């Protein structure tokens, strides 16, 4: 399939777990499904053996994803996906370890594991679906909720600043960092593919819609309206270079943010120690 | 002292209501409004509880209300005095919980199979669509019917309670829904 130029439309079905009840529990139009599609198509193109894929997640709407997919799936605890994934990867480096996580999961309770996985540059691909809220618990503020936005825990507008997850990952040490949106599909699949192929820690942040909570509370409309909004607010990396900080304030800069192919990878480096000590 | 179970009966001062339907039909909202209407109409104890979780996001939905003149011990329904079923699924699922000769109110615009002949059928959804132009108020219409059929609360209390919780701009629609529900129920009640 990896050779077929044309986007195959039914490849998804091959990866859904037959035992699971479909459609998913996600709300109608939830961007999680779009990301899941992009991820599967990338995996399929790359012709990975699915026995060697471990898909690890925390808790949240997003984190339900592995449960639907025919991989080794580890649905862990809120915030801890990357710590579990580190164990899986380091224990069995031949595995392709993918973490799927939400903005709350990765950056609120899981923030420490996030920066440390970046720092170690361990060969894990982390897909962070940023819907700017805690979807699963009903629309509370998250570390990516914009200032002044309404959430159920910021009923008078958010007074906190938000993280730029890509920036944070980069300064923590991640060696591949990119951002996409659920609107910009072909690019989304492309950066997920690149992230999967990258050796070292890779982050793909995907701007996605939780119209059910974030959208409703902030009058952003339904799913199609939010996807449209992502189109309007996105700026490519190239374009952003020539823009002022203020112009970029509420924009999503998309594309590859950072790539470092020289940095050594954690498991590889440890392997050298084993080889030296054993030999 | 065996055969205790043969002798027991559920206290008469409890009146147990279940509003059931699908996720989008506003059963929780209805139950809350119902509690507030009852609360206004005297010194009764009221407990409301609801199914929570996945069920609350689409799928079946139910809310129980227990009303009593004295302290309410067990907060959930034991044997329903009144069941409102807005869908076939909810009717099938909960009919067994209704006590013999309990009040059964069915949205006959959405239900086709009836487990009994003893029910009050009103086409809430169809009436809401046709008479008011919005199916969203079908639940409020059902409350109007409950008001008429049980007398647990006054129409005025119901109206006050609904308007206090409903979004601005929906006042007329809701008032009309209560009226229709109340009137339709009075019609069949008289029969």
């Amino acid at each position: 399939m990896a050779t077929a130029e044309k986007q195959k439309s039914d490849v998804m079905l091959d990866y859904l777990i037959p035992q699971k009840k479909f459609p998913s529990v996600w709300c109608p139009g939830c961007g999680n499904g779009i990301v899941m599609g992009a991820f599967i198509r990338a995996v399929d193109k790359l012709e990975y053996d699915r026995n060697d894929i471990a898909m690890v997640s925390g808790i949240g709407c997003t984190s339900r994803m592995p449960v639907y997919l025919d991989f080794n799936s580890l649905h862990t605890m809120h915030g801890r996906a990357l710590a579990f994934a580190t164990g899986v990867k380091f224990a069995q480096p031949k595995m392709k370890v993918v973490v799927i996580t939400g903005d709350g999961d990765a950056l609120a309770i899981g923030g420490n594991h996030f920066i440390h996985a970046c720092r170690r540059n361990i060969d894990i691909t982390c897909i962070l679906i940023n819907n700017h809220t805690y979807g699963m618990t009903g629309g509370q503020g998250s570390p990516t909720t914009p200032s002044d936005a309404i959430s159920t825990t910021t009923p008078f507008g958010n007074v906190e600043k938000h993280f730029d997850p890509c920036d944070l990952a980069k300064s923590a040490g991640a060696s591949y960092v990119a951002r996409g949106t659920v609107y910009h599909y072909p690019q989304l699949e492309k950066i997920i593919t690149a992230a999967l192929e990258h050796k070292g820690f890779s982050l793909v942040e995907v701007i996605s819609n939780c119209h059910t909570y974030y959208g409703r509370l902030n009058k952003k409309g339904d799913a199609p309206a939010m996807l449209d909004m992502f189109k309007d607010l996105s700026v490519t990396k190239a374009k952003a270079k020539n823009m002022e900080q203020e112009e970029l304030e509420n924009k999503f800069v998309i594309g590859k943010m950072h790539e470092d192919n020289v940095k050594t990878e954690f498991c590889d480096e440890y392997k050298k120690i084993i080889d030296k000590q054993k030999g | 002292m065996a055969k205790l179970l043969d002798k027991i009966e559920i206290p008469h001062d409890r009146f147990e209501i279940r509003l059931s339907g699908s996720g989008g039909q506003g059963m929780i909202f209805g139950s809350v409004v119902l509690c507030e209407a009852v609360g206004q109409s005297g010194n009764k104890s009221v407990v409301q509880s609801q199914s929570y979780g996945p069920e609350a996001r689409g799928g079946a939905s139910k809310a129980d209300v227990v009303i009593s003149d004295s302290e309410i011990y067990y907060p959930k329904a034991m044997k329903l005095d009144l069941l409102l079923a807005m869908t076939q699924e909810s009717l099938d699922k909960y009919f067994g919980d209704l006590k013999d000769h309990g009040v059964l109110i069915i949205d006959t615009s959405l239900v086709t199979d009836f487990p009994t002949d003893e029910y009050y059928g009103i086409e809430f959804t169809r009436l809401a669509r046709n008479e008011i132009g919005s199916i969203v108020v079908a639940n409020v219409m059902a409350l109007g019917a409950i008001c008429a059929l049980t007398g647990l609360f006054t129409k005025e209390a119901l109206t006050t309670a609904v308007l206090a919780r409903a979004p601005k701009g929906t006042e007329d629609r809701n008032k009309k829904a209560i009226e229709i529900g109340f009137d339709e129920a009075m019609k069949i009640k008289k029969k």
Partner: protein
Amino acid sequence: MANKKKKLLQGNGACVEGAIYSGMTFYAGYPITPSTEIAEGCARLLPKMGGRFIQMEDEIASIAAIIGASVTGRKALTGTSGPGYSLMQESIGYAYMTETPIVIINVQRGGPSTGLPTKVGQADTMQARWGTHGDYNAIAIAPSTVGECLTETIRAFNLAERFRTPVTVLLDEVMGHMREIIEVPEKGDHEVFNRVKPTASHEEFEAFEMTENLVSPMASYGDGYRYNVTGLTHDTRGFSTNRTDESIQKLDKLFYKIENYKDEIFKSRVELVEDADVVFISYGTVSRAALQAMQIARKAGAKVGSIQLYTIWPFDYDMIKKATANCKTVVVAEMNMGQICHEVKKVLDPSKKLETVQRYDGEIITPMELLEKLEEVL
């Protein structure tokens, strides 16, 4: 609503009202089902009265923040559920050690682990006593109605401040989400205990003074009493120590300041046990099923009584012994695989039968199940 003094509230909402009534002005928390409405309620209500709400990055940060706030003199609250309560265990130990009053509301769901997030359980009962490492003495209480969610939260703050210790309020999913019409108390309706402040000069001030009742007056940061707070075992001035005598003194203080005043903490509702053949023992939502079953059974002629625990920890062994003195059988009903029944066992006269009704499937125990058990044991 017509009657101004009444309100339809969820259990979680009533906890918020109770906390605010107590003078709580600081909430830090992290959302988790089925407790989230507590956070959301505080986010909405606190700024209106000059209080402060903050959503922290996780549960550990949340409890740390409320301990910090309490040290500045505020009454502080957090709400959570099982997974968050487990995460808080290290910090709860810090609050014990530093004798910092805080209130934690744990709205229990099905466990262990993520378990059944939207369903009910009572399986964190033992954890509320033994969850953190080391020796200490714990206070945990459990309401059973929405009205009690309000009043028991007030009691929780009173106990926390009176004893300078963390207090856990054990709710459960059903209790947290259930709505009842309750009376909104006015000033003066309920006693509110405020922490005792020091009167000594800064020089003489000993932050952990061995007072007669073993509770030391507590200075607020910024009051001019500059002192040291540490989780290390410390002397009466708050400085860490390795001395055996001082270590013993500190741990005894933690233990006996509660143990010696248990009677102030105990609370239970004992009904019709005098002539009862069977006595139910229960707490939280389950007590409502027990009272219901008792009422029904009595009507049907069975001699049944009920003990409802409002204070779970410290456990009131004497009351249990006394209140079960006349019965033949005790039925402990709880939504877990058996926790409080083991405490009852410690004290129950061996001549009496100990039976249990346990549910751990995410549903609450019904009066009918209890009646069936009665049928079996009567």
